[in-house]
């Protein structure tokens, strides 16, 4: 079937001069605007020039710490020497590729999930399988030599903590949101209590409890891995926020949707699965992406319980006696990585909204 769409041919050629005219008017339209434009341009130049000089012109690109000390700019030789430690942390040197593979698996999973054309229930199975696979690879399955979790670190840890944190919080958050809107009073109260308590305390406190207090409550002789405890803490914490986002989605649906489903004779489970949740979740995708970005950046808090996440490995890299104190370079490097990922996620969110809107319109 073909659909004839009328496209206005002149649109591109007419819009461009319009846009420039608007720019010109805005920047140089009046003497005041000219003055503001010039002042801001000078300010930007004054701020950017020393930064550029530090980062590029006066920088040292290779060699030793002595070479760096001889020049005044950034010491990128430090990053060249330390990038492996910053990215992989304490992970055994000769088996880095395992950690890289685990990250690649998880990244592939996230990218595939982001494309609407792959959206189906099979994704749930894919998530379980691929995450289990990534953890096994990280743990040393390909070489058959165990890598204990205290050797995990760097970017793989940040990626795993945030992605598994989000994936684990998703079903829990949906369940909490449904419980909070349930007509069963006890269930509703329990959900409200959990959500409000989790939202009422900072993530750092939750991490502290998981590391320091929780082990005291276990029967003697029983121990749960520290990373696993931190991961569960993150899942519980994020699920509370997730629940509130899902609840917003549920509330955004007109009651007609519920009534119509009931009129069709659908059971509560079928109504939720086939009618309500697909619409409600789609409505809150931008909020989900927002939460995911926040979580990705918040995982840096695991530094307080001594885990070597990406930010912490960068910080620790600057304490090597022979490469002492290159904080600016280390933090610039991690900032670029964090920014790249977060910016890509926010652009993706915009793209997805446009896609979904286009679909909606074409229906």
């Amino acid at each position, binding site marked *: 079937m073909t659909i004839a769409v009328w496209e206005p041919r002149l649109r591109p050629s007419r819009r461009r001069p319009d846009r420039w005219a608007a720019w010109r008017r805005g920047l140089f339209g009046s003497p005041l605007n000219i003055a503001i434009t010039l002042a801001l341009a000078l300010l930007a130049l004054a701020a950017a020039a020393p930064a550029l000089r530090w980062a590029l012109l006066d920088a040292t690109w290779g060699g030793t710490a002595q070479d760096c000390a001889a020049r005044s700019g950034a010491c990128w030789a430090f990053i060249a020497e330390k990038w*492996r430690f910053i990215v992989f942390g304490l992970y055994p040197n000769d088996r880095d590729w395992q950690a890289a593979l685990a990250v690649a698996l998880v990244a592939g999973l996230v990218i595939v999930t982001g494309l609407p054309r792959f959206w189906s229930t099979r994704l749930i199975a894919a998530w379980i399988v691929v995450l289990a696979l990534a953890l096994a690879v990280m743990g040393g399955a390909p070489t058959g030599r165990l890598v204990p979790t205290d050797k995990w670190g760097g970017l793989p840890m940040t990626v795993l903590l945030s992605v598994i944190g989000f994936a684990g919080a998703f079903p829990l958050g949906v369940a909490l949101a449904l419980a909070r809107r349930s007509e069963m009073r006890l269930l509703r109260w329990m959900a409200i209590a959990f959500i409000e308590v989790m939202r009422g305390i900072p993530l750092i406190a939750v991490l502290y409890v998981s590391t*320091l207090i929780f*082990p005291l409550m276990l029967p003697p002789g029983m121990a749960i891995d520290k990373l696993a405890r931190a991961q569960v803490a993150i899942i519980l914490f994020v699920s509370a926020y997730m629940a509130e986002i899902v609840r917003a989605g549920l509330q955004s649906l007109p009651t007609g949707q519920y009534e119509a489903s009931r009129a069709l004779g659908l059971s509560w489970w079928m109504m939720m699965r086939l009618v309500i949740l697909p619409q409600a979740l789609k409505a809150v995708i931008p909020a989900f992406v927002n939460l995911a970005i926040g979580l990705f950046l918040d995982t840096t808090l695991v530094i*307080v319980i001594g885990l070597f996440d990406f930010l912490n490995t960068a910080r620790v890299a600057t*304490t*090597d*006696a022979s490469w*002492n104190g290159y904080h600016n370079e280390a933090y610039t490097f991690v900032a670029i990585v964090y920014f790249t990922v977060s910016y890509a996620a926010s652009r993706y969110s915009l793209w997805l909204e446009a896609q979904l809107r286009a679909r909606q319109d074409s229906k």
Partner: protein
Amino acid sequence: MSIFHGNIITKTTATLGALLVSASMLAGAAQAGETLDKIKSRGQIKVGVGTLPGFFAPDSNGKWQGFFIDFGRALAITVFNDPEKVEFTSSSPQQRLPALQAGEFDVLLSGVTQTITRSFKLGFHFGPIVFYDGQGLLVAKSLDVTKGTELDGATVGVQSGTTGELNIADFFRKNGKTFTPVVIEDTKEFVSALESGRVDALTQDASDLALKRAQFAKPDDFLLLPERLSKEPLAPAIRAGDDQWLEIVNWTVYATIQAEEFGITRENVDSFLTSEDPAIKRFLGVDPSLGEAIGLDPKFAYNIIKTLGNYGEIFERNIGKSTPVGFERGYNQPWTQGGLLYSPPFR
């Protein structure tokens, strides 16, 4: 006593016992020998550390290196005869002591200052002091002073929020000299104040000053004065209540100190194996009676020296004059050379 009563008493005792056990667990109190059993069943020692150049830092390959790290490896040698059977975990200063209390670490080698409050109120045992630190003075060599007492009318940079300001005021008052304090907030500015000549001297923990000096463009133009204005003895910390583990920590540290006093190094340790001196024979386990008596590998001291070297070697390799940290031995040399390191006899 009737069976009925007996039952109630047994039950009550059992309940009370269970309560006590859980209470002592919550308090983190360890039973004698418990730590070593846990370490042995786990197969490694868990050590809490910090991150500071020369003292504890992973190298580019992610392997932990440093002065305190070597003592952690020495412990692993004492227990397992394997320097790798130890796991180092870095955590923030606020979290270290509660984490030790919670049993997350077997020993803290993070540069904890031994104080009476920590011993009594927090319930920690401290091993032998492995590093004598204290507030020091860093000056420009151009001032031409070699002792703190020669400073008169100097401008001294103090970092805000530290106890350093009180100590330095006491120091100058005691010597009947005057000074002008300059309180500086930012660490970077603190350092550049001395480099630019805005202040004549900086005061802070000596180890910290040594590290800052290493970051100067011309470190050799500056001098760390010998005086210490405060006492900061850094010692391994363990949970109170496990005497056996404490003794293992004690004698592991003493072994490195005693070896230096004997003049035994990583290089020459094998030549001492044939020594006729009974003290050295006992120390190196050539005469195994001592090790058998204390329940440790009789050769634990030999193994430590052979792998890591004596105290002096550990010091020089990580933070000594030839390293970027460039620390003077100061008080941290054997009592026979005018320092404070003193090991009880191995007999």
